[in-house]
């Protein structure tokens, strides 16, 4: 033990531990965020699927906008009243339109939205098939017209050159 210090490493460690325990005992158990966890979970599940009208890049569940808070409260009340998820969804859509839904419903005005990508895919496949067919036909006809291929004349020259090389060996 160091004579200059009245405390050894053990005592200091013990003091540290004591202080640590003291701070731990001050920590309270986390207060529940909402009175009713089931209601809260359903509210979050519903509002996660909805767009906040004020900050339109945020979901209704994650937004701090005042209107979002009001609407979350409204949804909570409806859940407590025993309304179904689809009733709550209808409540929101009646007021703010399909715009609030992150998953647009399937209906006449949204067919293009839902099937548009497949239309593009189908068009691309048609173009590809058409191109491959034409290319195949051109290859079958012979080298004529295929880019980078040799014409009959060029082929003859190439053969002649190869023969020359072989003759020199």
């Amino acid at each position, binding site marked *: 033990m160091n004579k200059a210090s009245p405390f050894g490493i053990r005592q200091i460690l013990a003091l540290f531990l004591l202080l640590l325990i003291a701070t731990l005992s001050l920590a309270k158990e986390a207060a529940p965020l909402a009175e009713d966890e089931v209601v809260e979970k359903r509210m979050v599940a519903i509002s996660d699927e909805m767009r906040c*009208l004020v900050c339109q890049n945020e979901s209704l569940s994650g937004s701090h906008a*005042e*209107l979002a808070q*009001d*609407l979350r409260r409204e949804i909570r009340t409806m859940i407590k009243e025993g309304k179904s998820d689809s009733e709550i969804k209808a409540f929101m859509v*009646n*007021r*703010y*339109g399909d*715009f609030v839904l992150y998953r647009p419903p399937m209906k006449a005005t949204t067919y293009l939205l839902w099937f548009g990508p497949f239309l593009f895919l189908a068009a691309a496949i048609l173009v590809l098939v058409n191109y491959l067919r034409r290319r195949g036909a051109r290859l079958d006809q012979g080298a004529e017209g295929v880019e980078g291929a040799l014409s009959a004349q060029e082929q003859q020259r190439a053969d002649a050159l190869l023969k020359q090389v072989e003759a020199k060996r």
Partner: protein
Amino acid sequence: MKRFMIPLFLFVVLLGFLAWGLKPGYDPHEVPSPLIGKPAPAFLLKQVDSNAADFSPEQMKGKVWLLNVWSSWCVSCREEHPVLLSLSKTGAVPIYGLNYKEVRGDGGFKEPDVETPESNAAELALGRRRAEAWLSQHGNPYVLTAMDITGRVGIDYGVYGVPETYVIDKAGIIRYKRIGPVTQESLEKKILPLVKELEKS
């Protein structure tokens, strides 16, 4: 030649879309209201004037009228206020006010955790004082103003930003919704012609 026509065509289409996105007055954040063509949601609210009876849109049956959502803390409302004032002087169409969350909408106020009749009365009184002060300072274009203290009526009307203005016809159907401040241009091009047409029917 065909080789260049296809990309050129695609580029022109793209330009068309871009031009459409840049057209003046187009706001991509504007949410088209599903309430157009539907009956104006019913409500019964206290007025700014504490001596007046409660106001309900039912009382407006048979008249074409404007419902203007405003608040003293709303900055854009100050922008449209002169337009509304001059409109009210012409008497072309009556303007009714819906004061939206006068106290709560103001960032400084903390909502009570539990609403009691006393806290509600105190909030209403404070809201009336603020609304009255604002109207006497800036002028009052409204026939009357109903107090939507909690913002619950605003939710029924799909209000998501003040100011908003609704044109409601004689049968109580919402015919048009203006999101954002009413301008002289929107008044002359859209609102007044619509009001005239609705008056005829």
